[in-house]
């Protein structure tokens, strides 16, 4: 719909047609002086923002995209500071100002913040004050920049909340942020950002913490408001699907430098830079089934399942009005297969996974586990001893590779702990087993004496996997195991898990909200919605021809990483 030219880098002014370009950033450099030297978070970045256009800044964690955005408003966290470059803001009245020259506490930059350039952040929960009402926080901007009276500001605030489609805006004004859902909070943030009709909206991963269907609605809303107000939008994200869906221009960043810049079609279909190619490649790889899985003969569906869940119920809260986190779930896990469980937040998928190890005591139902010798155990009713044995054979991998490793234990201790507490190995033998496990997950055994903080996110997740396979389990429950990882690491991690699966004969229960990851790895899928399994079937069948309206709605909200296949406007909502 919109195509923008990005001025060739290094030729300032060439493309800055009057009235079009609102912000010119030239050689922006932001440094963080630390004890060991200087971290060049942003290293000579140049780009233009144009009226009514969207510039997407993509990159993996640590690429400096967030710092770039914060540099524009001069709100970089200490000790970071802008050391060079210029950021020229062109005002509608023809005047312009170099933001880099303004002091970060000066009256001039404060007049720009919130009024001419507004920003929304990733975490809608923590980015708003919990002890002030929504109205208070929005009206503050209006009164500050537009010098409105209290009554005027309130009226305008209600109007803004109506624009961002918050139900009952006149009542919402006096509510607190914790009374809203994540998506509604992000709408409040947007209302706050738009309060003074800014020329530029900077959105720093505004949909990363949201579900796909909510994400689609927020992206739609931003697009709509952009068309109404003619803002320039700078959208920071790591999700290539979102980029393909909304970008006019794309800026690919890596280690503080711009690797490639261009219009969205070129970036996706004719990338020149190696890093961009790698990034796009790893995204596209997750669009289809893994090669290892395509080569493998299909799993034997007639085999007796390892785990058979029947009418599982897990209720929380008072028995009178229970919250049914898992509501009558029936499914089975076959030997050697990967069962994907997909659903949005609050669908009960994590609770379901935890019930399999009886981390929670289910309210009702059966989990029948077939042991290696063929005998069957009902995990829901099992006594302490049996449960202990079952937990040795059913292991878990967690989402957060930082939080799930004890920072005071060395890697060898973390991986060796299950062997030690179960009395399987100690001393020299334990050392050998740990070294072997580390090799299996692609970690150098020489690093075993290091602590978790010395490892990157991907390596930490490998440690988590090594710990999970330490006891030769038969089933692994992986709860969002790759969600915290950058996209380029994701497929590596999944390949590793699949190799281990084939080698050790594991079954996986793979819980994820990311349909790409599920499609890449899983043999069968169960779709959960509000505690119930609404659809189960083979991956291809569920992904390509879903039968349940919720699955259809969910799939239609997922942005595809191809700008030629923008489809989100065709999405539909499931309200059942």
């Amino acid at each position, binding site marked *: 719909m919109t195509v923008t030219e990005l001025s060739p880098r290094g030729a300032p002014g060439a493309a800055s047609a009057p009235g079009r370009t609102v912000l010119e950033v030239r050689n922006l450099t932001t440094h963080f002086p630390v004890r060991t030297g200087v971290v060049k978070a942003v290293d000579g970045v140049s780009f233009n923002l144009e009226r009514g256009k969207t510039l997407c800044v993509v990159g993996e964690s640590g690429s400096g995209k967030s710092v770039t955005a*914060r540099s524009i*408003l001069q*709100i970089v*966290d200490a000790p970071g500071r802008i050391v060079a470059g210029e950021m020229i803001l062109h005002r509608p009245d023809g005047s312009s100002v170099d933001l880099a020259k303004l002091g970060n*506490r000066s009256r001039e930059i*404060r*007049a*720009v*913040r*919130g*009024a001419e350039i*507004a*920003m929304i*952040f*990733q*975490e809608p929960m*923590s*980015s*708003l*004050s*919990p*002890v*002030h009402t929504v109205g208070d926080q929005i009206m*503050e*901007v209006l009164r*500050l*920049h537009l010098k409105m009276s209290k009554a005027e500001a309130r009226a305008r605030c209600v109007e803004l909340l109506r624009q961002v489609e918050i139900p009952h805006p006149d009542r919402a004004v006096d509510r*607190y942020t*914790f*009374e809203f859902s994540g998506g509604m909070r992000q709408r409040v*943030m947007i209302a*706050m950002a738009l309060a003074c009709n800014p020329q530029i909206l900077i959105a720093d991963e505004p949909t990363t913490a949201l579900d796909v269907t909510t994400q689609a609605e927020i992206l739609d809303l931003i697009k709509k408001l952009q068309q109404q107000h003619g803002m320039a939008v700078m959208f920071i994200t790591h999700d290539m699907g979102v980029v393909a869906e909304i970008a006019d221009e794309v800026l690919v960043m890596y280690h503080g430098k711009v690797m490639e810049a261009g219009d969205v079609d070129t970036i996706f279909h004719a990338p020149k830079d190696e890093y961009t190619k790698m990034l796009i490649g790893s995204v596209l790889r997750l669009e289809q089934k893994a090669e290892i899985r395509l080569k493998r003969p299909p799993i034997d569906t007639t085999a007796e399942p390892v785990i058979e869940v029947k009418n599982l119920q897990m209720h929380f809260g008072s028995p009178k009005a229970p919250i049914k986190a898992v509501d009558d779930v029936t499914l089975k896990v076959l030997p050697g297969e990967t069962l994907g469980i997909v659903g949005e937040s609050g669908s009960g998928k994590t609770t379901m996974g935890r019930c399999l190890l009886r981390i929670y005591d289910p309210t009702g139902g059966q989990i029948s586990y077939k042991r290696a010798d063929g005998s069957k155990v009902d995990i829901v009713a099992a006594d302490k001893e049996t449960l202990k044995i079952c937990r040795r054979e059913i292991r878990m991998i967690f989402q957060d590779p930082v939080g799930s490793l004890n920072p005071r234990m060395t890697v060898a201790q973390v991986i060796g702990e299950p062997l030690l507490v179960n009395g399987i190995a100690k001393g020299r033998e334990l050392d050998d087993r740990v070294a072997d496990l580390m090799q299996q997950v692609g970690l150098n055994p020489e690093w075993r004496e290091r602590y978790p903080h010395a490892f990157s996110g991907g390596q930490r997740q490998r440690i988590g996997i090594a710990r999970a396979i330490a006891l030769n389990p038969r089933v692994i429950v992986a709860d969002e195991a790759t969600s915290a990882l950058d996209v380029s690491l994701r497929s590596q991690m999944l390949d590793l898990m699949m190799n281990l699966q084939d080698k050790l004969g594991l079954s996986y229960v793979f819980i994820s909200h990311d349909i790409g990851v599920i499609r890449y790895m899983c043999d069968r899928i169960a779709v959960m919605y509000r505690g119930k399994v609404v659809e189960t079937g083979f991956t291809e069948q569920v992904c390509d021809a879903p039968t349940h309206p919720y699955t259809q709605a969910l799939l239609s909200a997922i942005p595809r990483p191809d700008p030629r296949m923008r489809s989100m406007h065709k999405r539909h909502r499931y309200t059942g």
Partner: protein
Amino acid sequence: MLRFIISRTLWMIPSLFVVSFLAFVLIQLPPGDYVTTYIATLAASNEVVDQNTAADLRQRFGLDQPLIVQYVKWITGILTRGDFGLSFEWQQPVSDLIWERMALTLILTFSTLLATWGIALPIGVFSAVKKYSIGDYIVTFFSFLGLAVPSFLLALVLMYIAAVQFGQEVGGLFSEQYVNAPWSMGKVFDLIHHLWIPVIILAVSGTASLIRVMRANMLDELGKPYVTTARAKGLSEFHLLVKYPVRIALNPFISTIAWLLPNLVSGSIIVAIVLSLPTAGPLLLQSLMSQDMYLAGAFVLLICTLTLIGSLVSDILLAFADPRIRLE
């Protein structure tokens, strides 16, 4: 909210009964009673009291009756007539003794509190905002110094300075001519004139620890994303600090009210004795030492009541200050 307050208030009644009984039993626990102490005091001045006189005395004070009877008499007296009994030692009604002292204690404690919060909170905020600056180091140094110096030592030093350097009369809260005089403007000025020494002494240690707490609270809040949001709105640094992080960092202080009130009675005894202040602390100590059970009992009951009221007040205030608590 109203239901919460009512139910909390109702729950206070049984708790008070249990606490008052426990207090009564605790005071009786040490061997002997007031008469034993009295005889011992007399014996020290070579007066001998025979068994009959002692028994007479016990009967007169009602000390020969079983514990439970004494308790019931005591508590009915309080509930029906507001009569806390007679202090054996002072031969005066307990309530008269306590109220006189409590009024002065209140004045002293609240002036100290105002001074402490007034000094400590802004400094704590400064120290957090300018973390690791010269100013922060200076403040940190002095707050550790204030923590480390025992307050009675500070009391002695200040008394010396006030007496020798300024020639001021130290000790007590009034000059001699006003001690027993009725209240007048002159007496109020005299009180203010005497108040500053105990206030400084008591505030120093309080300020020192409070600065550290406020600094830590602020440092927790300063890095939160909502502070960045406020900055991105274009608020001035001072305005946004006061409105957002300071506001939230203050919440934990509201819970300290719970133990602030009982401190009225039992806090700062050592300083009060060193400065011979006519506050509640020294009187409580004295009554416990002489086993003056009605006076001590009344004090303990007062401390317990103040603790309960204090926690109720702080809970209600917290609910007003933090909407998240109100929701639950």
